[in-house]
């Protein structure tokens, strides 16, 4: 979606963003400058694309940051400014870029890593009565923010394994589940995911034994084991027979047809086939489950389902009067695991 004229690009000359396997360099920003200048400097130092909405007041901020991570730096800019933020429930961090928009900065319990940050977005206590049991437990809702250059969301194909090694309530009592213990079986569930679950984030509700959520948790420690990949983009002209070479193989347009029409516009179905370099690797490992196209409302991202077997797949474009000229896929390479530790102290939320 185009954010077009309302955004000011902070810096025209961008360095290359770090590949995911590279940590962003630590940031030192010890100066008094306008928000735009500070954001531009952060962009230059980290390579991360930052945009500022035109409604944001370009205040002069006094920063004293020494060797902090990318997210620590952005958070501190927002905190000092007081009326700017880059995420708002239900959407978390940016994908490809971070956009600073006008709005009160909200503090969450946060744990920083050189490239990522993990927050606790919510706490909940659940009491359930089913036919054969009455149970009570708690949920800690954790959200991993990926920096703009590392996609961590579900559509990116990234996978997360969350684990908590220590969880202590306000009275010093461990509320960690026993080995093998899980959330009880439920017939119907709600509030099963964090209130921040969209954007470039991986979100998860973690099971804990019951505690007083108003008094919160004294300590929580754990890790997210993230399976991530480098990504590159491949743009196809939407004409039958056109193809693009990618690091994982050649992608060919087999079909580009009007499928149906409704009140919202036309539904176009594009048939694509990857001629893979390694045909044993499933599509979901080498392509992200999304694509973008230049639509009537600007750049539009759409998710797609990739089949578990075979290398042909369909991309569906909806609500467009005409078939877009091109479509861009994101190719995944070099999948590997990284462990992101997190630690929170005194986790609680003031009553609203």
């Amino acid at each position, binding site marked *: 979606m185009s954010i077009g004229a309302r955004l000011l690009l902070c810096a025209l000359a961008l360095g290359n963003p770090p590949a995911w396997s590279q940590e962003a360099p630590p940031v030192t920003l010890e100066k008094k400058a306008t928000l735009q200048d500070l954001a531009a400097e952060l962009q230059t130092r980290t390579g991360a694309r930052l945009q500022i909405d035109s409604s944001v007041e370009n205040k002069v901020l006094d920063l004293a940051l020494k060797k902090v991570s990318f997210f620590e730096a952005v958070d501190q800019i927002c905190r000092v400014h007081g009326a700017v933020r880059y995420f708002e*429930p239900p959407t978390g961090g940016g994908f490809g870029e971070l956009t600073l928009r006008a709005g009160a900065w*909200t*503090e*969450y319990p946060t744990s920083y890593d050189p490239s990522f940050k993990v927050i606790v*977005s*919510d*706490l*909940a*206590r*659940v*009491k*359930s*009565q*089913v*036919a*054969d*049991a*009455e149970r*009570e437990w708690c949920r800690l*809702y954790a959200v991993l923010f990926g920096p703009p250059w590392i996609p961590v969301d579900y559509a990116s194909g990234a996978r997360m394994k969350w684990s908590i090694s220590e969880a202590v309530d306000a009275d010093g009592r461990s509320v960690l589940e026993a080995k093998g213990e899980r959330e009880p*079986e*439920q*017939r*119907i*569930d*709600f*509030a*099963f*995911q*964090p*209130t921040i*679950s969209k954007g470039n984030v991986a979100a998860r509700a973690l099971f804990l034994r019951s505690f007083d*959520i*108003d008094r919160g948790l004294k300590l929580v420690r754990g890790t997210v084991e993230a399976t991530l990949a480098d990504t590159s983009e491949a743009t196809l002209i939407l004409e039958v027979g056109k193809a693009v070479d990618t690091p994982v193989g050649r992608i060919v347009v*087999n*079909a580009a*047809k*009007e*499928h*149906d*029409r*409704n009140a919202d516009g036309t*539904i176009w*179905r*594009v*048939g*694509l*086939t990857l001629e893979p370099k390694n045909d044993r690797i499933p599509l979901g490992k080498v392509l992200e489950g999304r694509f973008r196209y230049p639509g009537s409302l600007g750049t539009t991202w759409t998710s797609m389902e990739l*089949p578990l077997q*075979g290398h*042909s*797949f*369909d991309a*569906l474009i909806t609500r467009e009067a005409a078939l877009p000229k091109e479509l861009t896929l994101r190719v995944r390479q070099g999948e590997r695991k990284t462990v992101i530790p997190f630690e929170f102290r005194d986790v*609680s*939320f*003031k*009553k*609203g």
Partner: protein
Amino acid sequence: MMLALVLSVLFQSQSDPGPLLERLRSDSVVEREEAGRSLERLGPGIIDRLKKELEANPDLETKFRLRQLIERIPKIAELAKVYGPTRRVTLSAHDRPLSEVTSELGKALEESIGIEDLDPGQAVTLDLKEATLWEALDRLAKTTKTSYAYLPSGIRFKKGEMTDLPVLYFEQFRISLAEVKYVDHRSPGVSEAAVLLAPEVAFQRNLKPTGGKWGNTFAIESIQDAAGADVRCKAPAWASGINFARQPFSLQQHFFVRPVGGPVTIQGTATVAFSQENREIAIAVKGENREAETPEVKFSLGGYTETPAATTITLKADSLVPGSYERVKSVWLLDHSGKRHRGSPGRGEIGPGGFTHEFSFPAGVTGKEVVFEWAATLRPVEIPFRLTGIRIP
């Protein structure tokens, strides 16, 4: 089967309800309950007699029971004609091993009843008179402090005592709550709690209802607290959708209520619909006429696309009645050699006025016709219910 039903109806019509009407006024609650059940079994032939009893202005409880019988008996008779008789059991066990009781109960109810991690020798004392399947299972679970699962493979009794969720039995059906859930939530600036009630209607395994999976089983008149205030509310912003772990042989729905201290009463009607006639409807893939019509629904074929990944169609329905998507049982693509290829549902929109839904078929199939099975005649069973004393955990 039909002969047995007819004989049973004849036999019932000849029975004298007099002694049972006397027992309806018994001092013993158990006797009154049993008398009510026995009167139900006598069928519609006793309705006039029940009305006369009612005109005689009996005490309040008897009035209530008579009115209930006058309302229920015709429904039960209708149900039995269409779906067969309710499974019932009469059993008297005094200090008998659990395994013997489950075996006897299984034979009487035509069910396979197993036990999991329970002592098969556990002594059981249980008296059942004309109990329905669900009453019998609940009574056995209560008396043995166990619970059970009603599964496609049979009934499994297991550890875990039944909780005090209210239950209403109506012939082949059991209306209760699948779950009552309370969630207290905190996030920056938000401190809120919400309660979810999930009424459920379970049915005998021989019944195969149509529809009900998309939240149209229960029409709720009220959900009230002890003071009579309606406590229904909208889903909180932090609810993040609803997940159902659906159980076989049951239909559920959900309603949010405000967290209140005292017990809650939910009242309404559960409607379970059964298909009496399935019809195949065919629509040509190509040509001018890509439509088909029934008295209630107009179908049309929206899109048809072949790609190397799949052949995809869009089926549309403009319907005068809700629940049309669930009446589409199976969808096939008929190729030019006459071979049928089963479709799997894809993306779609379902609304009260119809649906637009994609179905995909194996790649390489060139279709001549789209054929689908349609539940043409539905017979709804409406069960009014009132569940009281629902405790918020």
